[in-house]
């Protein structure tokens, strides 16, 4: 069976192994022992609450209990941009109008901004290819929302997720070719690599400080602003179902969209149910559900069938073990799928 749990120091080696499979494009998971080791230490300290809330980085792993291997990883950074500047482009509007000439031009502009500083960030999601079946991907992504719902007080009001931007067949980014290349004079892969080793803010400092008119960019660059990489489209839809939206912020290199959501408006926060675990088998109309315990220092979550209604949630002995719970312990549940007619 699979369980999603808070990461531990023992997970560093398997995590590095997993990071080798990630490939380029995911800048926060590079197979670098120093970087990942430090990150896992931070995560462990985060769950133990030994560092201040804004410095925390909650990392979760999906473990296959049958063989003890890691199947996936995901994370929530408590706050971005507090150590080094966090840059995005904000799509703004400038209207140029002349009554005398009867001309009215509405121009989109790109403003270099640090507006999202302090937001919590969903990041570093990766699922091993052999586990990309069934509900695993969806579950791994949504697990973070249930965590946020359980520990709302640990998060700022705003949650963001940076989505990988559009790339052409040959792997180039039309937006980067149309804009960034002129200012950095290096290939996208190189920039991407620098971003991974924490030099994104250095690079951003080379960007023009003044707003740019989108109309100056080549058409293919204009067209991909706010567009995700083809392989990221399902992930985007999934986050949008959970209450996150594109609100005009994009990555400064590939123009991939930043999705944003208010914690209080997330589906998980509105619809998840605090309840009590019970040993038994579910009866009645059932639904695929995320069930987590409520312990921050030993956070664990399973995906199972549970029934609607009722004061308690019936779980098997095995499931209770996976959650490190006993009957009578508090748990929190969230249906995996968005109910079509909720609270009708």
């Amino acid at each position: 069976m699979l369980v999603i749990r808070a990461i531990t120091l023992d997970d560093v080696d398997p995590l590095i192994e997993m990071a080798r499979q990630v490939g380029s494009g995911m800048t926060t998971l590079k197979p670098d022992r120093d970087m990942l080791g430090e990150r896992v230490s931070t995560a462990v300290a985060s769950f133990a609450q030994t560092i201040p809330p804004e410095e925390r980085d909650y990392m979760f792993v999906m473990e296959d209990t049958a063989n003890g291997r890691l199947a996936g990883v995901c994370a929530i950074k408590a706050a971005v941009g507090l150590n080094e500047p966090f840059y995005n482009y904000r799509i703004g509007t400038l209207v140029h109008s002349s009554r005398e000439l009867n001309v009215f031009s509405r121009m989109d502009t790109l403003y270099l901004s640090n507006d999202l500083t302090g937001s919590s960030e969903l990041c570093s999601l990766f699922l091993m290819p052999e586990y990309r079946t069934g509900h695993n991907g969806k579950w791994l992504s949504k697990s973070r929302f249930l965590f946020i719902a359980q520990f709302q007080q640990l998060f700022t009001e705003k949650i963001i997720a940076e989505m990988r931007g559009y790339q052409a067949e040959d792997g180039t980014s039309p937006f980067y070719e149309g804009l960034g290349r002129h200012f950095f004079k290096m290939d996208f892969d190189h920039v991407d690599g620098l971003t991974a080793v924490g030099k994104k803010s250095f690079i951003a400092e080379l960007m023009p400080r003044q707003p740019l008119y989108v109309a100056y960019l080549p058409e293919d660059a204009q067209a991909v602003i706010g567009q995700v990489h083809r392989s990221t489209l399902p992930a985007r839809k999934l986050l949008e179902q959970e209450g996150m939206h594109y609100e005009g912020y994009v990555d400064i290199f590939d123009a991939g969209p930043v999705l944003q959501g208010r914690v209080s408006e997330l589906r998980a926060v509105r619809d998840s149910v605090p309840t009590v675990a019970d040993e038994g088998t579910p009866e009645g109309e059932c639904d695929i559900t995320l069930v987590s315990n409520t312990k921050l220092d030993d956070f664990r979550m399973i995906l199972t069938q549970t029934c609607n209604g009722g004061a308690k949630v019936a779980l098997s002995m095995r499931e209770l073990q996976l959650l490190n719970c006993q009957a009578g312990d508090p748990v929190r549940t969230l249906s995996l799928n968005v109910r079509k007619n909720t609270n009708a």
Partner: protein
Amino acid sequence: MYVVRPVEPADVGALEALLAASTPGVHTLPRTREKIAALVERSCASFAAHVDIPSEETYLFVLEDLEHRQLAGTAAIHASAGSNGTYFAFRNDVIQQVSRDLNISHSVHALTLCSELTAYSQLSGFTVRDREKAGREAALLSRGRLLYAVLAPHRFGDRFFVPLAGVTDDNGQSPFWDALGRKFFKMDFLDAERVIGGARNRTLIVELMPHYPVYVPLLPGLAQEAMGQIHPSGELAFNLLAEEGFEADEYIDIFDGGPILQAHKNALRSFCGSMVRRVATQDQPPGAPAQLDTMVNYAVASSERNFRAVVVPCTPAESGDTLCLPSWAQQALRVAPGDNVICVRI
């Protein structure tokens, strides 16, 4: 024989004919009789005005072919380019991009909408009949108006600039405009020039044109190539102005990207190289070959009140305090021996 002189009301008809035949690239002079008459009237009033601070005056000069009693060219100076508003131009800026951490250092060329030229005096309206065949008289025309400024410095700013028409194709399309102005004005280049009357000091410019720097590498190649390039019709003017001491690299026109030449007056040859001399009469009629060898061409101008300028070969006047002029030149300048003139080698 040519003379440069202030335009007169009687010139309106001849001007209309001359301007009708001139290049469409020059947008700074009117074409209709009514507007030409208004300009001439304004010029006459400007020459007659007592000026403390340069303002709305426009001085229009004509080049007259004395032999045929015909007008052969025009040139103008606006005392203050922004007298009716702010004069807008793009300034060529270089933004240095340096990151020690990344070992990157390069520069990015940007265009910034600026109004620095507002207080400058603006040369404009340079037209010459039969441009291809034009000789010294074109140099006289270009320099003559500056000699007026030398004689009447209080009427002008300390700095001068000249916008020259930029590159357009056979259909009147401007690649620079297409990449930039069109996106804001939503109209063809010539249509835009028509509605704005060739002006660069109208409020609607600041309403419509970009407020933020234009990063040149983002512009299409054709537009980049057109920046600072002159329309072929402007080549003569460009060469004359470059010789005069104007510099081209700092500003370009916001519409067609043509160069805007500018200089402090002290950098101009008309200002720093002109000398005041007393008129004397040339003893011998020119023609003796030995004498011709030693003669140099001077642009000679009379006075602020009664301005005339001619180009005439004379014996070098650097060492003496007189300038020997043939009688035709004295007549054309309306001076007599003993009067002061200013002269500069041409």
